[in-house]
């Protein structure tokens, strides 16, 4: 097989090829490494690639496969967002403050993939500490949208989305705190699944907002996302918030029709500023679902209007504590010539964090301060409960919800960097799933006349990943375009 053919494979196709002996894991690693070497200087999807280690892992996987052994991902190269700890690799979170840090352990998600034979190819760019929606907040470099180099790939998992959609990775891991898997998937034209809160262990995920963060797969097809999710799901004693719910065989349960499925369309999601192309593509998707046998009902999520304010209070409050550990004492960057501990913290953190991270730490510190705690943090928690209740009521009458993933397609690099609030408002359709802890999937559902992808968001009840995967897969199959490498 040619390098171009190898790099265009889905995970399922690659597994079939490996089984048939059409290619080896080493072939896959070599082809991707060469492509990264050639094209990533421009695309900027990766922050580091460890070809030697990946090749060694691929060789081991090939040997295991030849011996009739090996797990469900034996020999499949995967790209990992730079926020997850992989033993022996740097984990910078695209921040200067983690300069020199090498992870001493595997995140649970990584350990699970490793146990199934996955090969860790490299680490992908992101907004610093996952704070942002364009990957422009990376302290390292810009990542471009593979569909159009002038546009952002979205964020914060922009590097993972660009790598998967841009032919530099067969699949990737992202993390989603307020849309950071789904929005870049929509912007770049790939599949992104944010699992329910507690579905995937967060142990080893450098925390941004602990009550919102989730790790999830970013892939070229829904079936691939289903396979990865089967492996990632499950309770972990190292993460007290992980949930001991049974893990269904997601991939095997996929169907091409939607008979017997009830889908809800939230009345509140026709927001001002919704791009006409996005609106049209999502309406077509709704019609397609109907044609596939689904019953479509209108539902109401009345507290949606408060979601962004609530999200930015909860997320920044938690972040202000989570990021306090980066102080120059134990690992990462340490500024020289400090006079005392406080001076060390100030100098290290001033030099180590970028402006968006500082903005959010300050905001989070403020909302938790005595005198403001009740007005902001506690109130936000109450609204969060109301938002969760909205979804519970909606899911009492439907199996999944259909919404746009983002109000607009990808924007130009630099277009919103001077206006953080405008950037925050782009999260309107995605943050609610994190606040409510439910499952959310983004699948491509069209493109603008300029060729920018549009994402359909499918939301499902907590621990019902099978619902959103089924709707996503039926849509993907019915559109018939399949994965375009």
């Amino acid at each position, binding site marked *: 097989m040619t390098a171009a053919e190898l790099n265009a494979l889905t995970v399922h196709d690659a597994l079939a090829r490996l089984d048939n002996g059409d290619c080896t894991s080493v072939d896959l690693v070599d082809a991707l490494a060469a492509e990264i070497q050639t094209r990533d200087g421009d695309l900027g999807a990766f922050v580091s690639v460890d070809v030697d280690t990946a090749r060694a892992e691929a060789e081991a996987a090939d040997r295991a496969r030849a011996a009739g052994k090996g797990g469900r991902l034996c020999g499949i190269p995967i790209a990992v967002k730079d926020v997850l700890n992989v033993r022996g690799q740097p984990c910078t979170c695209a921040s200067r403050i983690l300069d020199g840090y090498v992870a001493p352990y595997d995140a649970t998600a990584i350990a699970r993939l490793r146990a199934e034979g996955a090969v860790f190819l490299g680490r992908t760019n992101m907004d610093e500490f996952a704070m942002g929606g364009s990957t422009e907040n990376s302290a390292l470099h810009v990542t471009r949208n593979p569909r159009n180099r002038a546009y952002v790939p979205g964020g914060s998992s922009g590097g993972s989305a660009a790598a998967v959609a841009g032919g530099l990775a067969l699949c990737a891991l992202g993390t989603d705190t307020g849309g950071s898997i789904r929005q870049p998937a929509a912007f770049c034209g790939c599949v992104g699944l944010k699992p329910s809160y507690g579905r995937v262990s*967060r142990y080893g995920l*450098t*925390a941004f907002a602990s009550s919102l963060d989730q790790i999830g797969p970013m892939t070229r097809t829904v079936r691939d996302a289903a396979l990865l999710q089967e492996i990632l799901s499950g309770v972990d004693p190292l993460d007290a*918030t992980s949930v001991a719910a049974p893990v269904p065989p997601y991939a095997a349960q996929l169907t091409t029709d939607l008979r017997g499925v009830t889908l809800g369309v939230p009345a509140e999601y026709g927001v001002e500023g919704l791009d006409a192309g996005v609106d049209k593509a999502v309406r077509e998707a709704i019609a397609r679902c109907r044609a596939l046998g689904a019953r479509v009902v209108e539902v109401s999520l009345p507290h949606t209007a408060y979601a962004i304010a609530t999200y930015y209070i909860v997320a920044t409050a938690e972040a202000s504590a989570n990021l306090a550990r980066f102080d120059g004492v134990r690992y990462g960057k340490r500024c020289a010539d400090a006079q005392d501990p406080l001076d060390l913290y100030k100098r290290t953190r001033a030099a180590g964090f970028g402006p968006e991270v500082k903005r959010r730490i300050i905001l989070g510190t403020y909302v938790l301060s005595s005198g403001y*705690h009740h007005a902001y*943090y506690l109130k936000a928690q109450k609204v969060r409960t109301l938002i969760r209740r909205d979804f519970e009521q909606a899911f009492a009458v439907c199996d999944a919800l259909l919404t746009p993933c983002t109000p607009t397609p990808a924007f130009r690099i630099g277009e919103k960097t001077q206006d953080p609030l405008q950037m925050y408002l782009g999260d309107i359709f995605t943050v609610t799933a994190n606040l409510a802890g439910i499952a959310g999937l983004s699948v491509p559902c069209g493109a603008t006349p300029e060729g920018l992808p549009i994402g359909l968001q499918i939301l499902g009840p907590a621990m019902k990943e099978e619902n959103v995967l089924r709707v996503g897969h039926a849509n993907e199959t019915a559109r018939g375009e399949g994965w375009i490498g």
Partner: protein
Amino acid sequence: MNYRISIGLEVHVQLQTRSKMFCGCAVAFGAAPNTHVCPVCLGYPGAMPAMNREAVVLTVRTGLMIGSTISTYSKFDRKSYFYPDMPKNYQITQYDRPLCENGTVVADGGDGAKTVRIRRIHLEEDVAKNTHFAQASGVDFNRAGVPLMEIVTQPDMTSPEDAFHFLLALKQILQYADVSGCNLEEGNIRCDVNCSVRPEGQEELGTKTELKNLNTFKGVLHALKYESERQMEVLRTGGRVAQETRRWDADAGETYSMRSKEDAHDYRYFPEPDLMPVVLTEGEVDAWRAALPEMPGDRRTRLVRDHGIPEYDAGVLVADKALADYFEAAAKLAQNAKAVSNWMMTEMLRLLGETERDIRTVPITPAALASLVKLVDARTLNSNTAKEIFAELFATGGDPDAMVKQRGLAQVSDRGAIGALVDAAMAENPGPVADFRGGKVAAAKFLVGQVMKKSKGKADPQLVAKLLEEKLAGGGM
């Protein structure tokens, strides 16, 4: 004018769990720096806490011992502040939903029992230990994450002595509950102290100061004596006590200001999102209550009742759980509790005091003490020899039976043999014999001593006295 003192304590107690509060690292004192650490207790990126259930059980057991209400729902919170002893720069603690609320500890300081109300007991993680060198500072994270139970009292103590006696009573309960090593040298118990004074007759408490991190009970006593006097002097001279945190300098014997109220931290508490709330069922709590160890007061009553030892002795033994455990073990083997108690109250306590040793580590075992008691009861050993053997056992250990055999220490109780010695002593000392017969009774004592000397201390002194009396009265020789 007279003043009233009000004192409240926050007592931090390290729990004796096998592993730390939120990770699998061992709880170990005295290990080389940073050898019991992992990504969790070092606050590495991505590491998450996993709750040690054992620490919850020990905290609840303490609460049950002092009559607390046990919360069936409690939770952990983050307390944020930047300091190099905090790996995450926030501490996981319990803010508004502690594991235990209310309760009482009765402290008896000799001038009557005093009841101190407990406000709450919560669970948190200990911090690292900082060491300052000439050019730099070092942080040892071995202690970071050790389970720490904080016991907060109401301001019910009205003198530094009250606080001291409260701490002794609390330590006793903690030992009986078997929840902590209670080793003050190892920092198992550390106190923060609140103190205020007010003019007699005034209801409302005065402005309080806080003294941080006192790690001996005597330190608490001395610091409070100094601080309460200082505050009274401030009021006497027309000043106002400033609300502040002060540090006790044990060497200088005084407290000095660390930071004022204005500089107080804003800890920005919020619920720890990485941990689930601690939910206990009534059934669990009932089971723990049923399995509670005996309280010190109950044990004292039982010792008097079952072993027939004096009330006072029982009080002294029970005051230190290890001492009482030792007593009961020895008494059971010796079948003579009173004799064991006598040894404990006299020789044992005296030597423990002189050598500053711990009853748990002395070489003399309860079995050895029991053997010694049996040897005396069987009149194989006389009391003087027994004391010498006790001292030796205390210092180096050993088996009294074997020692008696090896050294031929067994008491001579043979009438014939002792009679011969008595005869010899009388023959060698005609003067005292005549004195006795002339009415000087004290002369008999001298003669007994001479007989004992001849027997190298092995003669049964009672038998010696009896035979001597007979022979002197008999008028022989």
